[in-house]
């Protein structure tokens, strides 16, 4: 049997100098320095903005000293780029092209391109091998009712939304609410959120009331019945996160996690997508985990916590704990009561 170490098999390498952060910082600096000479301070600021926290300390002296020969001194304290062409956009590597090729087998790719564009894309990458095959993966616990990515109407809606987001253009939307009411309204589309679990796109869209007050609504793209661009543009970028900050729970969820049944490891990974803090409790085999969460997703979080059973215990906040206690109380009654009582025809 011949053994080949996978990384020695002349395949493209993921961990390569070509993708290093420093190269990108230098490219950013040279782009600016091609427009107008930069002072050392300006170069340092760019290194801090685009690099790691300590990158400027290493990177800037090398550029200034000429160890990396891309800048020339044009005045006592300003430097211009020696390059003849702008560094962006750069040529893609074989690895990057094969990743793009792999996307072509994903049904969601059609949401971003017209048929004509997609066919140019496919032609351009016809001789590139895909990095992976979508069929090699199985998302075994993804919800069944994901968005209809292959639907013609859904694709048209997504493309209208994407175009309007880029233009900051208001959309006239007809929407089927959760309560099955049809709402017609004008919204400014700001951001799309994709849920990996449910395979759904949600549109964060700003509604402006007559008195000028603004509100951020969340629309399920699959529930949009019709969408049309309006003639109105919004003048500035909308900071969606500042709206969402209002939805953060005032008190974090506090959990006590035991180490039984590998619960710590399971819970830490499960809740890793939340902002959290974990501490080891002294003289016990338990850990306290504090999770900061969005109130809109509280029920979902509650269900997740319940799925761990007794190895994860809710300590607070009071309202959250009460919900758990109520559910456990109901469950205790359901289990303790004889089946003919709990399942009586009075239900």
């Amino acid at each position, binding site marked *: 049997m011949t*053994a*080949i170490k*996978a990384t020695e098999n002349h395949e493209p390498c*993921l*961990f390569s*100098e*070509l*993708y*290093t*952060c*420093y190269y990108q910082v230098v490219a950013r600096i040279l782009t600016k320095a091609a427009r107008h000479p930069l002072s050392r301070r300006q170069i340092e600021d760019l290194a801090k903005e685009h690099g*790691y*926290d300590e990158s400027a300390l290493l990177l800037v002296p090398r550029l200034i000293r000429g160890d*990396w020969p891309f800048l020339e001194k044009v005045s006592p304290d300003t430097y211009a780029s020696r*390059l*003849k062409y702008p560094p*962006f*956009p750069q*040529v*893609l*590597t074989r690895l990057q092209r094969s990743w793009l090729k792999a996307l072509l087998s994903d049904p*969601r790719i059609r949401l*971003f391109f017209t048929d004509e564009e997609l066919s*140019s894309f496919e032609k351009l990458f016809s001789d590139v091998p895909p990095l992976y*095959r979508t069929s*090699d*993966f*199985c998302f*075994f*616990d993804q919800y*069944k009712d994901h968005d209809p990515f292959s639907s013609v109407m859904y694709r048209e809606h997504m493309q209208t939304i994407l175009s309007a987001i*880029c233009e900051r253009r208001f959309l006239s939307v007809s929407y089927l609410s959760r309560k099955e009411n049809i709402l017609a309204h004008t919204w400014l589309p700001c*951001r*799309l*959120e*994709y849920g*990996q*679990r*449910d395979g759904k796109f949600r549109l964060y869209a700003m509604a402006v009331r007559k008195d000028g007050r603004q509100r951020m609504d969340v629309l399920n793209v699959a529930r949009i019945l019709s969408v049309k661009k309006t003639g109105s543009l919004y003048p500035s970028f909308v900071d969606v996160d500042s709206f969402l900050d209002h939805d953060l729970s005032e008190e974090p969820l506090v959990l006590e996690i035991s180490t039984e049944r*590998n619960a710590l490891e399971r819970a830490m*990974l499960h809740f*890793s997508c*939340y902002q959290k*803090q*974990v*501490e*080891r409790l002294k003289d016990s085999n338990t850990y306290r985990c504090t999770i900061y969460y969005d109130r809109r997703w509280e029920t979902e979080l509650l269900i997740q916590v319940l*799925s*761990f059973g*007794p190895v994860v*215990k809710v300590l607070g906040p009071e309202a959250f*704990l009460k919900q758990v206690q*109520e559910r*456990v*109380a*109901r*469950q205790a009654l359901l289990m303790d009561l004889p089946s003919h009582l*709990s*399942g009586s025809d009075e*239900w």
Partner: protein
Amino acid sequence: MSEYKELIRQFDKIRSYVRDFYVYGFKTREDFHEKSGRTYDNHRRRMESWFSDYIRTDRNGHKKSVFLTLDSSRMPVNPLYQAWKSKTFTDNDISLRFLLSDLLADGRPRSLERIADEIQEQYCCLFDTQTIRRKLAFFEKEGLMERKKEGRQYLYRAIPALPLAHPELSLPLWLCVSFFQGVAPFGFIGSTILDFWGKKNKYFRFRSDYLIHTLEDEILLSLLQAMEQKRQITITITGSKSHRTAARTVTPLKILTGTQTGRRYLCARQESTRRLSSFRLDSIRDVKLLDPDSNYDTWQKHFRDHFPQVWGVSFGGPERKQPETVTMEICLNEPEEGFILNRLEREGRGGAIRPVAPGVYEYTRVCVDAAELLPWIKSFTGRIRRFSCTNPAVEKRFREDMELMKACYLQPISSAIPRLQAFSLIRGDMP
């Protein structure tokens, strides 16, 4: 003693540190026994630098824990990708990366000698011809340059950048890459494409995104390569509980991704047991490709035949001869609690649902390892009227867990609920 550097030579050295800082976050310097304290200090400093916006510290007495904390649904790009962008390089590496790209950007092919001369003339830099040759060969291998023979010499030419060559695709490609860098396998590569084009993801966010997966990408690439070539492999795995390391010879068949648990697995046919097994990707330390497996298509068919009876990733042990059946009855107030029925349908992975009484539905699922269903079943706590399983151990575990939950949460209040009120609670509106 070598001086501290922000960049690193080998990714696998940092993988477990990033994981511990991000997933656990409570570990202190003393918990990192495997290497010296100085190694820990250097890695901690690197991570403070790479992830400066998300690093926090906590003091517990004299002990300090440093951890990474962030809300993944607010992130335009996975911050852990930064770890992939930390490879060291030499002065020659960076100089020739920019100078060769700039020189050849006009599209004219040039010989090696011509290139060396022009670099000296135009940028006042002198490089050894061998150094330039090696770099050009590297760029050619990476697909950044083309080489063709003309007469007795090779000419090198840059490939035009995609957005410049096809401006009509520029906007849709940017949006497409912005999205897929957050959801597709190897999203890190997508983020480097944004870097290469000087772009950022402005309009997409990702909910319930397990950022940690990126740390397994090198292993994943090797596994996919083996699957594509239908090879057997030897994997070195370290148990998450035992921390023991072992080697297994397997035929890789599928990558199973849990969108709810944050875990990814390799499903493979194990040579020693002749059974299908799942291995967590984060437990795989190394992959060695072996010869092609002549029965590869047979094992794939075997997987396809058996997977519909698997709830998650467990194909059961040799002791499980028969599939197990789980049945539960769920109570809900119709029609206002129709969402519970929706949950059963969309999350039930093909289980059968039928009404058994007004407001009571029975859910039944046959699977290889019923214990895997328990977390999902428990998420319906408060509504489960009946639970049974053909595996008595699973039924016992469920009952015990419910008893423990009762002991954990209810002792003070259960006795306070009068029996009459209990009935109304059962029928009452649940949030």
